[in-house]
């Protein structure tokens, strides 16, 4: 799941990890009540500083995506649809923002992008 965590990105690692989980919860990839891996497990698995995982989990908890239960671990919460939709939107906007920034750096126009979108998605919406 965390294959695309990029330490070279200007986005802090803990934000990348939290965002990945956020989207997974919002799209239903990870269902409510799923236990998250322990800090120890995840840090060793994706090879990041344990403090980074702690920070990511803390941020998710603060935003109401997960809850930690004393002694039992950290679990995914049930999110209402409006919240899930807004998280999906947030991630989609992030992707588009990156695309637009890159495209304008290359002086590609909106028409160029729309044309490419149609071609790549075969006309599907």
């Amino acid at each position, binding site marked *: 799941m965390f294959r695309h965590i990029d*330490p*070279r990105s200007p986005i802090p690692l803990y934000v990348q990890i939290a965002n990945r989980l956020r989207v997974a919860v919002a799209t239903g990839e990870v269902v409510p009540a799923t236990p998250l891996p322990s800090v120890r497990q995840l*840090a*060793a*698995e994706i090879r990041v*500083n344990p403090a980074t995982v702690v920070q990511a989990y803390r941020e998710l908890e603060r935003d109401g995506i997960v809850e930690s239960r004393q002694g039992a671990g950290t679990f995914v919460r049930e999110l209402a649809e409006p919240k899930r939709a807004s998280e999906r939107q947030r991630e989609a906007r992030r992707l588009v923002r990156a695309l637009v920034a890159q495209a304008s750096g290359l002086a590609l126009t909106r028409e160029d992008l729309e044309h490419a979108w149609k071609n790549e998605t075969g006309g599907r919406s």
Partner: protein
Amino acid sequence: MLPTGAPGFELRDVSLKVRQGAIYGFLGPNGAGKTTTIQLLLGLLRPQGGSISVLGRQVPLELPRILGATGYIPERPHLYPFLTVAQAIRFHGAFYRGFDWAYAEELRRGFDLRGEAKLARLSKGEMGKLHVLLVLAQRPELLVLDEPTDGLDPVVRRDGLSALLDFCSQGAATVFISSHLVHELERICDWIGVLDRGRLVAELPMHAFKNGIKRIRLDHAPSLIGDTPFLLVSRQQSALDQVWVVRGWQPTMVQWFQGAGAKVKEIVDLDLEEGFVELLRGARTPTS
């Protein structure tokens, strides 16, 4: 620290501060003096001036207590090649009061090292893993690793790193890793110190290093500059434009360029390796 190394080589102006519980990456090109610094920290070399304190204790006065709580993997570690893995563990463990034999066994299994294998027969990667096993099983307060992954294949590096991080998750050990392999440190370090030609040129939290340093592509960059709101690291003329590398960048600083008649074409984030290269470039050449 104001020590002297080999004749003709000096460390000067090195004020290192490693906070407890940090994973501190000590970066620098080959020959910068990283190993010399480590040798000074562990009492293997004596300084000519300055003071050294590790784990709250003075070097060299309280060296035995420091070394008892420190796991050290030197650049070229040495173990007696006629020992088996099991014997090497027993030998090393005997020196440390708190040596965790069960943890050593768990690591040995996890690293897939046969107890009866003679050290002389182990591959480089297996030796590397054995050294990690030995220092982690000490359950030290401080880990000092000098170029720990150099020459090891990626699989071994990952396994070693995972075990190290697993260990860090369990407690509040402080880790001091010196390396010129910047990419690995980027994932795990929360502090970095950069050494170049015997001088510490930067020491700051990882996020501050990565966020603050930018490459700026410009047209009509000013040739003479007075005070800048940022720290100018280097200036270069490329084929297409001028490129400035700055530290302490804030987005509002674009106005400074506009006021100077320059046009900012692009602001690029530098990853740790690029930031490191630019920092060294800036430290070595005057920019005014």
